[in-house]
Protein backbone atom coordinates (compact mmCIF):
# COMPACT_ATOMS: atom_id res chain seq x y z
CA UNK A 1 0.00 0.00 0.00
CA UNK A 2 1.17 3.50 -0.84
CA UNK A 3 0.25 4.45 2.70
CA UNK A 4 3.05 2.35 4.09
CA UNK A 5 5.89 3.79 2.01
CA UNK A 6 7.62 6.41 4.14
CA UNK A 7 7.75 9.90 2.70
CA UNK A 8 11.19 11.31 1.96
CA UNK A 9 12.62 13.51 4.73
CA UNK A 10 11.30 17.06 4.88
CA UNK A 11 14.33 18.83 3.44
CA UNK A 12 14.39 16.55 0.40
CA UNK A 13 10.63 16.82 -0.01
CA UNK A 14 10.65 20.61 0.19
CA UNK A 15 13.47 20.84 -2.31
CA UNK A 16 11.64 18.60 -4.76
CA UNK A 17 8.39 20.54 -4.32
CA UNK A 18 10.17 23.83 -4.90
CA UNK A 19 11.80 22.34 -7.96
CA UNK A 20 8.38 21.46 -9.40
CA UNK A 21 8.70 17.68 -8.95
CA UNK A 22 5.16 16.54 -9.71
CA UNK A 23 5.70 13.03 -8.33
CA UNK A 24 6.66 14.52 -4.96
CA UNK A 25 3.57 16.70 -4.98
CA UNK A 26 1.38 13.72 -5.89
CA UNK A 27 2.89 11.81 -2.99
CA UNK A 28 1.99 14.36 -0.30
CA UNK A 29 -1.30 15.15 -1.98
CA UNK A 30 -2.40 11.51 -1.80
CA UNK A 31 -0.91 10.90 1.63
CA UNK A 32 -2.33 13.87 3.48
CA UNK A 33 -5.58 14.71 1.68
CA UNK A 34 -7.70 12.03 3.44
CA UNK A 35 -6.78 13.38 6.90
CA UNK A 36 -7.23 16.91 5.65
CA UNK A 37 -10.70 16.12 4.33
CA UNK A 38 -11.77 14.58 7.62
CA UNK A 39 -10.38 17.48 9.56
CA UNK A 40 -11.91 20.09 7.24
CA UNK A 41 -15.26 18.34 7.56
CA UNK A 42 -15.28 19.17 11.28
CA UNK A 43 -15.15 22.87 10.50
CA UNK A 44 -17.69 23.11 7.67
CA UNK A 45 -21.15 21.71 7.16
CA UNK A 46 -20.89 19.62 3.98
CA UNK A 47 -18.45 17.20 2.33
CA UNK A 48 -18.48 19.38 -0.78
CA UNK A 49 -17.35 22.42 1.20
CA UNK A 50 -14.68 20.33 2.91
CA UNK A 51 -13.33 19.34 -0.51
CA UNK A 52 -13.21 23.00 -1.54
CA UNK A 53 -11.40 23.85 1.69
CA UNK A 54 -8.81 21.15 1.07
CA UNK A 55 -8.35 22.31 -2.50
CA UNK A 56 -7.92 25.93 -1.39
CA UNK A 57 -5.43 24.83 1.25
CA UNK A 58 -3.35 22.93 -1.32
CA UNK A 59 -3.43 25.94 -3.64
CA UNK A 60 -2.10 28.05 -0.76
CA UNK A 61 0.60 25.42 -0.19
CA UNK A 62 1.60 25.55 -3.86
CA UNK A 63 1.84 29.33 -3.70
CA UNK A 64 3.56 29.41 -0.34
CA UNK A 65 6.08 26.57 -0.54
CA UNK A 66 8.82 29.03 -1.51
CA UNK A 67 8.25 30.79 1.80
CA UNK A 68 8.26 27.63 3.96
CA UNK A 69 10.94 28.16 6.57
CA UNK A 70 11.16 24.71 8.07
CA UNK A 71 10.47 25.84 11.64
CA UNK A 72 7.72 23.23 11.94
CA UNK A 73 7.56 20.03 9.94
CA UNK A 74 6.18 20.33 6.42
CA UNK A 75 3.10 18.37 7.43
CA UNK A 76 2.41 20.66 10.39
CA UNK A 77 2.80 23.67 8.13
CA UNK A 78 0.38 22.20 5.55
CA UNK A 79 -2.14 21.29 8.25
CA UNK A 80 -1.92 24.74 9.80
CA UNK A 81 -2.81 26.22 6.40
CA UNK A 82 -5.68 23.74 6.20
CA UNK A 83 -6.98 24.66 9.66
CA UNK A 84 -6.79 28.37 8.88
CA UNK A 85 -8.57 27.90 5.55
CA UNK A 86 -11.24 25.74 7.19
CA UNK A 87 -11.72 28.20 10.04
CA UNK A 88 -12.16 31.12 7.65
CA UNK A 89 -14.69 29.10 5.67
CA UNK A 90 -16.48 28.01 8.85
CA UNK A 91 -16.77 31.62 9.94
CA UNK A 92 -18.34 32.52 6.61
CA UNK A 93 -20.81 29.70 7.15
CA UNK A 94 -21.34 31.05 10.69
CA UNK A 95 -20.14 27.71 11.91
CA UNK A 96 -17.17 29.13 13.75
CA UNK A 97 -15.90 26.82 16.44
CA UNK A 98 -14.82 28.68 19.53
CA UNK A 99 -11.54 27.32 20.83
CA UNK A 100 -10.63 30.30 22.98
CA UNK A 101 -12.97 29.42 25.83
CA UNK A 102 -14.40 26.29 27.36
CA UNK A 103 -18.01 25.23 26.88
CA UNK A 104 -20.23 23.14 29.16
CA UNK A 105 -19.63 20.13 26.87
CA UNK A 106 -15.93 20.28 27.82
CA UNK A 107 -16.53 19.84 31.50
CA UNK A 108 -18.66 16.78 31.85
CA UNK A 109 -17.05 14.21 34.14
CA UNK A 110 -14.73 11.82 32.33
CA UNK A 111 -16.38 8.80 33.96
CA UNK A 112 -20.07 8.49 34.80
CA UNK A 113 -20.28 9.82 38.41
CA UNK A 114 -22.74 7.06 39.32
CA UNK A 115 -19.83 4.61 39.18
CA UNK A 116 -18.29 6.21 42.26
CA UNK A 117 -19.38 6.02 45.89
CA UNK A 118 -21.36 8.96 47.22
CA UNK A 119 -20.96 11.00 50.36
CA UNK A 120 -22.07 8.77 53.22
CA UNK A 121 -20.81 5.60 51.51
CA UNK A 122 -17.75 3.89 53.08
CA UNK A 123 -15.28 5.44 50.58
CA UNK A 124 -16.77 8.55 48.95
CA UNK A 125 -15.26 9.27 45.53
CA UNK A 126 -13.90 5.75 45.13
CA UNK A 127 -15.18 3.18 42.66
CA UNK A 128 -18.42 1.44 43.57
CA UNK A 129 -17.87 -2.26 44.06
CA UNK A 130 -18.64 -3.91 40.72
CA UNK A 131 -18.27 -0.65 38.78
CA UNK A 132 -14.49 -0.59 38.48
CA UNK A 133 -12.99 -0.71 35.01
CA UNK A 134 -12.07 -4.27 34.04
CA UNK A 135 -8.79 -4.97 32.23
CA UNK A 136 -9.10 -5.34 28.46
CA UNK A 137 -7.38 -8.36 27.00
CA UNK A 138 -6.29 -6.87 23.72
CA UNK A 139 -4.11 -8.64 21.19
CA UNK A 140 -1.32 -6.51 19.71
CA UNK A 141 -3.28 -6.46 16.48
CA UNK A 142 -6.48 -5.05 17.98
CA UNK A 143 -5.94 -1.74 16.18
CA UNK A 144 -6.21 -3.55 12.86
CA UNK A 145 -9.42 -5.35 13.77
CA UNK A 146 -12.23 -4.14 11.50
CA UNK A 147 -14.82 -4.25 14.24
CA UNK A 148 -12.63 -2.28 16.67
CA UNK A 149 -11.94 0.26 13.96
CA UNK A 150 -15.65 0.64 13.30
CA UNK A 151 -16.24 1.26 17.02
CA UNK A 152 -13.50 3.90 17.02
CA UNK A 153 -14.89 5.65 13.96
CA UNK A 154 -18.35 5.63 15.50
CA UNK A 155 -17.00 7.00 18.79
CA UNK A 156 -15.13 9.78 16.99
CA UNK A 157 -18.16 10.65 14.88
CA UNK A 158 -20.33 10.99 17.97
CA UNK A 159 -18.00 13.56 19.57
CA UNK A 160 -18.76 17.29 19.55
CA UNK A 161 -16.82 18.93 16.67
CA UNK A 162 -14.18 20.64 18.82
CA UNK A 163 -13.53 17.43 20.70
CA UNK A 164 -13.17 15.43 17.50
CA UNK A 165 -10.78 18.00 16.05
CA UNK A 166 -8.50 18.01 19.09
CA UNK A 167 -8.38 14.24 19.58
CA UNK A 168 -7.90 13.69 15.85
CA UNK A 169 -4.94 16.04 15.75
CA UNK A 170 -3.36 14.73 18.95
CA UNK A 171 -4.03 11.00 18.85
CA UNK A 172 -4.92 10.06 15.29
CA UNK A 173 -2.47 12.39 13.52
CA UNK A 174 0.04 12.36 16.34
CA UNK A 175 0.69 16.08 16.76
CA UNK A 176 2.24 17.33 19.99
CA UNK A 177 0.32 19.48 22.42
CA UNK A 178 2.33 22.54 21.31
CA UNK A 179 1.58 21.96 17.64
CA UNK A 180 -2.15 21.57 18.28
CA UNK A 181 -2.29 24.71 20.43
CA UNK A 182 -0.52 26.55 17.66
CA UNK A 183 -2.80 25.27 14.89
CA UNK A 184 -6.04 25.91 16.74
CA UNK A 185 -4.95 28.96 18.68
CA UNK A 186 -6.01 27.38 21.94
CA UNK A 187 -4.35 27.47 25.36
CA UNK A 188 -2.53 24.33 26.55
CA UNK A 189 -4.92 24.02 29.49
CA UNK A 190 -8.09 24.23 27.41
CA UNK A 191 -6.61 21.89 24.83
CA UNK A 192 -5.98 19.33 27.56
CA UNK A 193 -9.48 19.65 29.02
CA UNK A 194 -11.03 19.03 25.60
CA UNK A 195 -8.62 16.20 24.78
CA UNK A 196 -9.39 14.53 28.09
CA UNK A 197 -13.14 14.64 27.50
CA UNK A 198 -12.70 13.29 23.99
CA UNK A 199 -10.40 10.43 25.03
CA UNK A 200 -12.64 9.62 27.97
CA UNK A 201 -15.65 9.36 25.66
CA UNK A 202 -13.77 7.06 23.29
CA UNK A 203 -12.55 4.97 26.24
CA UNK A 204 -16.11 4.62 27.53
CA UNK A 205 -17.30 3.48 24.10
CA UNK A 206 -14.46 0.93 23.86
CA UNK A 207 -15.18 -0.25 27.39
CA UNK A 208 -18.77 -1.09 26.58
CA UNK A 209 -17.69 -2.77 23.34
CA UNK A 210 -14.98 -4.91 24.98
CA UNK A 211 -17.23 -5.78 27.91
CA UNK A 212 -20.02 -7.05 25.67
CA UNK A 213 -17.50 -8.81 23.41
CA UNK A 214 -16.02 -10.59 26.45
CA UNK A 215 -19.51 -11.56 27.65
CA UNK A 216 -20.37 -13.01 24.24
CA UNK A 217 -17.12 -14.93 24.23
CA UNK A 218 -18.00 -16.46 27.60
CA UNK A 219 -21.49 -17.40 26.45
CA UNK A 220 -20.13 -19.20 23.43
CA UNK A 221 -20.30 -23.00 23.75
Amino acid at each position, binding site marked *: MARDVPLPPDDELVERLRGGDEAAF*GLVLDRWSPSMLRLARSFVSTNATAEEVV*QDAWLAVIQGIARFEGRASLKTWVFRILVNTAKARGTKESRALPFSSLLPEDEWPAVDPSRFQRAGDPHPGHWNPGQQPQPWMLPETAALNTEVRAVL*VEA*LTALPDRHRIVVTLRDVEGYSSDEVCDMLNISPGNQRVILHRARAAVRTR*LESYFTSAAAQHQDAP
Partner: protein
Amino acid sequence: MTCFELAELVTAYLDGALDERSETLLVVHLDGCPACRTLLDQHRQTIRLLGPAAPTAASTTTLAPAYREALLTAFRDAPR
Protein backbone atom coordinates in the same frame (compact mmCIF):
# COMPACT_ATOMS: atom_id res chain seq x y z
CA MET B 1 -7.00 11.98 45.98
CA THR B 2 -10.12 9.97 45.19
CA CYS B 3 -10.70 7.71 42.19
CA PHE B 4 -13.19 10.27 40.86
CA GLU B 5 -10.58 13.01 41.04
CA LEU B 6 -7.92 10.82 39.47
CA ALA B 7 -10.19 10.03 36.54
CA GLU B 8 -10.18 13.75 35.66
CA LEU B 9 -6.37 14.05 35.76
CA VAL B 10 -5.29 11.17 33.54
CA THR B 11 -4.58 13.26 30.43
CA ALA B 12 -2.71 15.92 32.38
CA TYR B 13 -0.67 13.16 33.99
CA LEU B 14 0.14 11.49 30.66
CA ASP B 15 1.13 14.89 29.22
CA GLY B 16 3.42 15.51 32.19
CA ALA B 17 1.43 18.65 32.95
CA LEU B 18 0.59 18.06 36.62
CA ASP B 19 2.30 20.05 39.34
CA GLU B 20 4.62 18.06 41.53
CA ARG B 21 2.19 17.74 44.42
CA SER B 22 -0.71 16.47 42.31
CA GLU B 23 1.58 14.12 40.46
CA THR B 24 2.82 12.63 43.74
CA LEU B 25 -0.73 12.22 45.06
CA LEU B 26 -1.74 10.57 41.82
CA VAL B 27 1.18 8.16 41.76
CA VAL B 28 0.59 7.21 45.39
CA HIS B 29 -3.09 6.62 44.65
CA LEU B 30 -2.25 4.46 41.64
CA ASP B 31 0.09 2.40 43.74
CA GLY B 32 -2.74 1.41 46.04
CA CYS B 33 -5.64 1.22 43.57
CA PRO B 34 -5.74 -1.52 40.92
CA ALA B 35 -8.99 -0.14 39.44
CA CYS B 36 -7.38 3.23 38.71
CA ARG B 37 -4.31 1.49 37.28
CA THR B 38 -6.70 -0.27 34.91
CA LEU B 39 -8.33 3.05 34.03
CA LEU B 40 -4.94 4.60 33.25
CA ASP B 41 -4.00 1.57 31.20
CA GLN B 42 -7.26 1.85 29.26
CA HIS B 43 -6.46 5.48 28.45
CA ARG B 44 -3.08 4.37 27.11
CA GLN B 45 -4.74 1.63 25.06
CA THR B 46 -7.32 4.09 23.75
CA ILE B 47 -4.52 6.38 22.58
CA ARG B 48 -2.72 3.44 20.99
CA LEU B 49 -5.87 2.26 19.22
CA LEU B 50 -6.60 5.77 17.94
CA GLY B 51 -3.02 6.03 16.69
CA PRO B 52 -2.03 6.71 13.10
CA ALA B 53 -2.40 3.11 11.90
CA ALA B 54 -5.83 2.79 13.34
CA PRO B 55 -9.30 4.05 12.73
CA THR B 56 -9.07 6.38 9.83
CA ALA B 57 -8.61 3.86 7.06
CA ALA B 58 -12.07 2.54 7.81
CA SER B 59 -13.60 5.86 6.82
CA THR B 60 -11.34 6.41 3.86
CA THR B 61 -12.02 9.66 2.16
CA THR B 62 -10.02 10.54 -0.86
CA LEU B 63 -9.84 13.66 -2.88
CA ALA B 64 -12.15 13.49 -5.91
CA PRO B 65 -10.12 12.80 -9.09
CA ALA B 66 -11.20 16.12 -10.62
CA TYR B 67 -9.79 18.05 -7.65
CA ARG B 68 -6.63 15.95 -7.71
CA GLU B 69 -6.10 16.66 -11.42
CA ALA B 70 -6.79 20.37 -10.95
CA LEU B 71 -4.23 20.55 -8.14
CA LEU B 72 -1.59 18.68 -10.12
CA THR B 73 -2.17 21.13 -12.98
CA ALA B 74 -1.94 24.09 -10.62
CA PHE B 75 1.31 22.68 -9.25
CA ARG B 76 2.70 22.17 -12.77
CA ASP B 77 1.73 25.69 -13.83
CA ALA B 78 2.87 27.46 -10.67
CA PRO B 79 5.51 30.15 -11.31
CA ARG B 80 8.84 29.22 -9.80
